[in-house]
């Protein structure tokens, strides 16, 4: 059950990051695609799952399956315990002060929508302003746009420079007494930029605005500490941190959550219901209507155990090494333009090849067994800002290797040969 990589790490001493051992924890990495070994470089879209996560999900269904918080019977108790234990793992993973500040959701998208619907609708009114950045994922644009439309509020956008870094001096200028909220991506999925969120949160707080941080791409790659950041909300998706799809978490400061109206009505979120009056349940259950993704939550807990055992700092160091290597190797390719060259960057290599559409790059690489994403990466404003319809994107995970970067480079030379 214990992840192979971790066992081997202990044998070799804490500093060795044995990527080959890590890879053995992920069964899918040994499969072939189109007759070639899989080179999986689409980790920003979703990550692969280690055996311990697959086992946790399947053990739940084999041995523990039942509904939670509802039964007095044995299985319900076991399932409830496992599900709530996973919540505490999420709490520790983010270093949240209280377990009741962790709300299970389907993923980053739902978490943002929850905050917009519950906090946003009660605090943002006509003429108010919400600040987001030019490098947000659509899931941190559209819900705010919908809110602004509904309320007659205004969306303000922090501009980005040619390297893909937010322009902080412009950010500061966006604030005024009507600024009611700031919602910011921690790490950009399209460019890899790591935003200086701590500094940006301080700025927002000086102006009295709470901040949501979209950590969908940060949680898998960097150590996250919500107390150090002092963010008001933090969101991430389980499937991008080596856990199952359909589960994620919202962290919110209890001081804000406790006054927020429920997001959905239904079972579990209430204390008592009569046709005259319903009393809502305590945190976090008030925001968790209906039977949740129990297996997902348990699987997420296993994923967090895995990542924690490997060590978020060591994962970040490994991926940084690959990023530096990949940046160097890709820069040698004639006609290749890297989109996103921020000084603080996480494992994303977004690029275009002169005269070759990213879609064609993706198809040819696919036949080499190399999985990259091509398109606008749900960040159309970013594409527009950099004047490209789309990019090809290789995004790194904790199991990627230098050899895989070499395979990507060889694949790109093949692409160029096809079109020469």
């Amino acid at each position: 059950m214990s992840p192979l990589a971790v066992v081997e790490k202990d044998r070799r001493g804490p500093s060795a990051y044995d990527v080959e051992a890590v890879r053995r924890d992920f069964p899918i990495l040994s499969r072939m695609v189109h007759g070639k070994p899989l080179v999986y470089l689409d980790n920003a879209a979703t990550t692969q799952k280690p055996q311990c996560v697959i086992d946790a999900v399947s053990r739940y269904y084999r041995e523990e399956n039942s509904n939670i918080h509802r039964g007095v019977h044995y299985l319900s108790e076991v399932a409830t315990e496992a599900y709530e234990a996973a919540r505490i793992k999420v709490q520790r993973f983010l270093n949240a002060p209280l377990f009741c500040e962790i709300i299970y959701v389907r993923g980053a998208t739902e978490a943002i929508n929850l905050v917009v619907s519950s906090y946003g609708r009660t605090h943002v009114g006509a003429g108010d302003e919400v600040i987001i950045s030019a490098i947000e994922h659509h899931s941190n644009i559209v819900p705010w746009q919908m809110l602004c439309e509904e309320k007659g509020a205004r969306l303000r956008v922090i501009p980005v420079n040619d390297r893909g870094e937010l322009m902080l001096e412009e950010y500061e200028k966006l604030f005024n007494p009507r600024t009611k909220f700031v919602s910011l991506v921690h790490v950009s999925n399209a460019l890899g930029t790591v935003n200086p969120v701590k500094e940006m949160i301080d700025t927002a707080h000086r102006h009295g605005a709470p901040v949501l941080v979209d950590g969908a791409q940060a949680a898998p790659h960097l150590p996250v500490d919500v107390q150090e950041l002092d963010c008001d909300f933090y969101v991430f998706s389980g499937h991008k941190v080596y856990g199952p799809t359909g589960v994620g978490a919202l962290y919110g400061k209890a001081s804000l959550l406790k006054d927020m109206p429920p997001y959905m009505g239904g079972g579990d979120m209430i204390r008592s219901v009569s046709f005259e009056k319903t009393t809502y349940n305590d945190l976090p259950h008030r925001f968790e209507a209906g039977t949740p993704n129990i297996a997902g939550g348990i699987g997420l807990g296993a994923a967090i155990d895995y990542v924690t055992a490997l060590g978020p700092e060591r994962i970040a160091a490994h991926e940084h090494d690959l990023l530096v290597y990949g940046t160097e190797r890709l820069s040698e390719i004639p006609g290749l333009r890297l989109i996103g060259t921020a000084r603080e960057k996480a494992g994303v290599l977004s690029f275009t090849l002169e005269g070759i559409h990213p879609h064609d790059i993706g198809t040819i690489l696919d036949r080499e067994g190399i999985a990259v994403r091509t398109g606008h990466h749900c960040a159309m404003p970013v594409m527009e800002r950099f004047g490209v319809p789309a990019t090809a994107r290789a995004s790194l995970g904790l199991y990627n290797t230098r050899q895989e970067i070499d395979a990507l480079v060889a694949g790109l030379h093949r692409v160029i040969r096809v079109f020469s």
Partner: protein
Amino acid sequence: MSGDLRELYQEVILDHSKRPRNFGALPQSNRRAEGYNPLCGDRITVYMLVEDGVVAAVAFEGAGCAICTASASMMTQALVGKTEAEVEGLFRGFHALVTEETALNADTSKLGKLSVFAGVREFPIRVKCATLPWHTMRAALENQAAPVTTE
């Protein structure tokens, strides 16, 4: 290159993608439509001059992948001199060629050079790239105002 890639990126297709024919606006056109494939960002405009039910000229502009650009380029060549009914027949034939193993109710025999796109079938995700110009052209014929999207 593997066999099906070679089928997809045939010489003719690569040639048309690098040097698209009838590329640019058509000032005298009387039909026009825009097409967009949000998945990959392909975006094209098709211009047509239709006189007495016959296609007198076709052109296109926009940015697309090799398959989309080549498909648009070869389409513009195939349509000139065709009646609207013949255009519809070609549309159906082309659609059948890139989507179905055996074309049902569609005549692929008149496709001529367009048959090089048969390789697209092996790449289901790329079918929309090949058909976007054709859908856009059809919208232009109907003088549809809203842009066509493949979604």
